[in-house]
């Protein structure tokens, strides 16, 4: 400091030093948060990809003189006929809803691998070990499983997406869970969106200050903070038990479903769970519409509904939409309530309608995570990636839609 600004008594140097130290501390906090995110992502990736040591139950070379991949469809069918019992084949066709004649060679090949070759992963290694300690791994495998083949494997692959549940990690897939989650979401949105937006409009536009409305508002705010597992208990008690006639479809003459542990019950439970969040988000969007807009409308002699329909809703729509998508992404990731309303991770039949039993992505993750075998951890990680991708794309859609809508109506 020079000239006029240098006062000897100034305490500024000290103050700037203290300021610098704390700035570093604050930055560190932020950095740790970011670090956590990074570690989380790495952990997952670490488990999804990596080396596996695989041992085939039946030696492939005994099945054909060429590599199995190169065989024609009828050759593959021949192998199946030879090695798999007729009953088993029938079961497979019934469960899958296809006949062997229809399906392409690729799928037949898959069947051959699954039913005949039956490869088992004896050992799987995380990504980073696989990359940096390949030699050690090879040595270890050579010693422990002399007849295993080692190759680099992505647990997240096409089969994983299209297969349904299986007790064999390599064969297990998330198709059923994915469909389950989608069904739940559709029901959730169909239930919660109209009611949520309606409630938000009621509270923001119509509600007077009467005690009824105050109670409603307070109630919604508090419901938003109720732990999801409590909703699960509620869903269990109401939708699964008390209303089981409705949720199992018995009341509508649907056969084959015994209890209320259906997609419908799960969707409704999720609907209740996201409803307060959706209402609050929508309320915020409606509230963000400047009052001046309403006044302008009323001042022109518009009725209340004209005002809402023509001005408030269009202006609030981007906000409502984002709010809804955010609420939905919450619903996709929720696990606890689904555990309570009885998602079963062992289901391998896609839900056929709202009265089906179901499983869902997070349930699948939960289930696989809590199993002891290492390979389930790998597919849990793969399922997590699927889940995160779904979430991120939903969010991306939300952001894009909002941007487009706001640009059009600035």
């Amino acid at each position, binding site marked *: 400091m020079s000239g006029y600004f240098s006062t000897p008594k100034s305490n500024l140097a000290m103050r700037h030093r203290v300021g610098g130290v704390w700035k570093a501390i604050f930055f560190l906090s932020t950095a740790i948060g970011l670090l956590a995110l990074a570690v989380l992502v790495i952990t997952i990736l670490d488990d999804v990809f990596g080396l596996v040591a695989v041992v085939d139950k039946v030696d492939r070379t005994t099945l054909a003189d060429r590599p199995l991949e190169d065989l024609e469809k009828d050759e593959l069918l021949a192998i199946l006929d030879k090695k798999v019992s007729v009953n088993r084949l029938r079961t497979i066709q019934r469960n899958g809803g296809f006949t062997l004649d229809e399906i392409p060679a690729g799928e037949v090949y898959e069947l051959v691998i699954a039913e005949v070759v039956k490869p088992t992963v004896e050992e799987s290694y995380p990504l980073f070990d696989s990359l940096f300690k390949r030699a050690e791994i090879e040595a270890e495998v050579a010693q422990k499983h002399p007849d295993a083949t080692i190759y680099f494997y992505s647990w997240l692959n096409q089969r994983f997406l299209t297969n349904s549940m299986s007790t064999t990690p390599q064969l297990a897939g998330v198709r059923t869970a994915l469909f389950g989650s989608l069904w739940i979401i559709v029901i959730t949105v169909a239930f919660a969106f109209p009611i949520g937006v309606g409630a938000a409009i009621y509270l923001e536009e119509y509600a*007077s*200050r009467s005690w009824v409305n105050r109670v409603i508002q307070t109630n919604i705010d508090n419901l938003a903070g109720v732990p999801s597992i409590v909703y699960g208990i509620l869903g269990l008690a109401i939708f699964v038990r008390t209303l089981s006639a409705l949720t199992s479809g018995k009341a509508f003459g649907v056969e084959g479903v015994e209890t209320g542990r259906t997609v419908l019950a799960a969707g409704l439970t999720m609907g209740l769970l996201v409803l307060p969040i959706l209402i609050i988000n929508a309320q915020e969007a409606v509230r963000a519409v*400047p009052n*001046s*807009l309403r*006044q*302008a*409308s*009323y*001042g*022109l*002699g*518009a*009725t209340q509904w*004209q005002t809402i329909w*023509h*001005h408030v809703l*269009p*202006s609030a729509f981007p906000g409502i939409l984002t709010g809804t998508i955010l609420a939905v992404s919450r619903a996709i990731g929720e696990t606890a309530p689904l555990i309570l309303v009885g998602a079963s991770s062992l289901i391998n039949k896609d839900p056929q309608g709202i009265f089906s039993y179901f499983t869902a992505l997070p349930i699948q993750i939960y289930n696989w995570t809590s199993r002891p075998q290492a390979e389930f951890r790998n597919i849990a990680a793969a399922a997590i990636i699927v889940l995160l991708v779904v979430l991120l794309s939903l969010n991306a859609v939300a952001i894009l839609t909002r941007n487009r809508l706001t640009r059009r*109506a*600035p």
Partner: protein
Amino acid sequence: MTETLEKQHLAIETRDMHLFYGHFRAVKDVDLQVIPQKITAIIGPSGCGKSTVLRSFNRMNDFVPSFHMEGEVLFHGQNIYATDVDPVMVRQRIGMVFQKPNPFPKSIYDNVAWGARINGFKENMDDLVEQTLRQAALWDEVKDDLRKSGLSLSGGQQQRLCIARALAVKPEIILMDEPCSALDPIATLKIEDLMRELSEQYTIIIVTHNMQQAARASDHTAFFTMDEDRAGIMVEYGETNQIFTNPRDKRTEDYITGRFG
């Protein structure tokens, strides 16, 4: 001035009007007679109830749940607070322009057309839009692109758009609550000139914090202040020229010369 006027010659007449928010009497006992096709200004210190009075003229206060009123507000001799009167209809006849320009986030065209449309206007909308934009002295500035958003205009233009929008509903009276307080001095003067032109066809009532504005732009001025119990009262009402050169009441004098409080 007003005694000689027949009631059908008044644009708005209040009788023993008291305005309340809950138990708080915000405005006390106002007998105001607004002359048609003139500009009437309401001035007074902050919180004296100017806006409350103005908003009682087209029942905008209905949206404040705690609000209620006593007395009468006569429009064409009819009390607009009578039970069989529809406030929506009142607001069609008595338009309003607000403090902050608040165009709809729509095109300029739709801003003007919307009010007419919901009120069942069936004739040529293009003509109406052009005509009202001309009336609001905005046509020349926007005619090249009526599809542009109303929000893309400058503050002063937005306010004139809001005026055009109000005109399109064909009101008789236009209420303005500090219409220029968000504008710069030049835009303000433009709006004032516009008001002057409009007053040939419309009755205009304007609330303003800006005494100079009331002085410049109005024909009649009502001065409000608060009495001891914080209720707004009308102290003096008369020709603007008289109020600003020779007010009759000491409180008016103190206020307009800046010696109040």
